C-alpha cells in the first residue's frame, strides 16, 4: 500500500496532461477520419476517457475527491449515451441499410 502511494509521486502531473491530450487528439482525428458510425462512437468514448484520466490525475494531485465523483458521473452519462446511440445505430442499419455517416446528410439542410 505504501509502495503504491510513494509510486504516484514519482509520476509528474505534466505526464498525465500530455498523455490525456494525446489520447484526446487521437480520438478527435479518428472521429473525423472514419465513416463507420460505430467507430465514431468508439472515438467519442476514447475522448471521454482521456478527459476522465486527466480529472482523476488532477483530483489525486489536488487532494479533492470531487474530481473523481465527476468522473463517476461522466461514466454514467457515457453509459446512457452509448445505450441510446447503439439503439439508433440498430434502427439505422435496419431502415437505411448501412452505417455510413455519408448517408446521413438529411439533417444538413
Amino acid at each position, binding site marked *: 500500500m505504501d509502495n503504491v502511494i510513494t*509510486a504516484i509521486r*514519482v509520476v509528474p502531473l505534466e505526464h498525465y496532461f500530455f498523455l490525456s491530450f494525446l489520447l484526446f487528439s487521437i480520438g478527435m*482525428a479518428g472521429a473525423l477520419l472514419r465513416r463507420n458510425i460505430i467507430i465514431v462512437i468508439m*472515438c467519442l468514448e476514447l475522448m471521454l476517457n482521456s478527459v476522465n484520466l486527466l480529472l482523476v490525475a488532477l483530483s489525486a494531485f489536488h*487532494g479533492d475527491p470531487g474530481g473523481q465523483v465527476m468522473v463517476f458521473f461522466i461514466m454514467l452519462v457515457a453509459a*446512457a449515451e452509448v445505450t441510446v446511440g447503439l439503439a439508433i445505430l440498430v*434502427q439505422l442499419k435496419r431502415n437505411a441499410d448501412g452505417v455510413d455517416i455519408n448517408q446521413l446528410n438529411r439533417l444538413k439542410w
Partner: protein
Amino acid sequence: MLYLFYLLAAVSIIAAVVVVAARSPINSVIALVVCFLSIAGHYVLLNAQFLAMVHVIVYTGAILVLMLFVIMLLNMNATVEQRKPLAVRLMAVVTGGMMLLVLLAATRQGLALPAPEAFNPGIGLVRNIGMSLFQDFLVPFEVSSVLFLSAMAGAMMLAKKDGTEDVNLPPSSEPRDKAA
C-alpha cells in the same frame, strides 16, 4: 515505478491508434478494450481504486461488450467501409495534430499546478469517494438514476421493430456482401 507509467502510456496510445486505424470494427473494439484496461491501470497507479473497478465493470464489462454484440449481430464485418478521400483524411490528421498543439500551448504557461502538500493519494479509496458521493453529491446521484431510466426506456423505444414506417434514406454506397 515511472517505467510502469511509461509502459501503460505506451500501451494506451498504441491501442488508441489501432482503434482509429483498424479496418475491421471487431479489431477496433478489441483495441479499445486494451486501451481502456490500460487506462484502468493508470487509475490503479493513481490509487483511484473505486474508479478503476467501476471503469472495468462499466466500460469493458458493459459498454464494449454491448458494442461487440451490436457489431456481430448487425454483421458489420461483412461490409467493407469505404475510405474518405485522401485530402479529407489528411485534414483529419492535421486537425488532430493541431488540437494537440493548441492544448499543449494552452497549458504550457499559466498552468496552476497544485501545491505539493495538497497531494493526497488516499482520496481515491472507496470510503472517501462514497462519503463525498453521498454527502456532497447526493442529488446529482439520484438524478442520474432518472437519467438511466429514461435512457433505458428510450433505447427500448428506439430499437423496437415496427414495420409501419420506413425512413427512405438513399441506399448505401458501400458494396454489400449478399452471401453473408
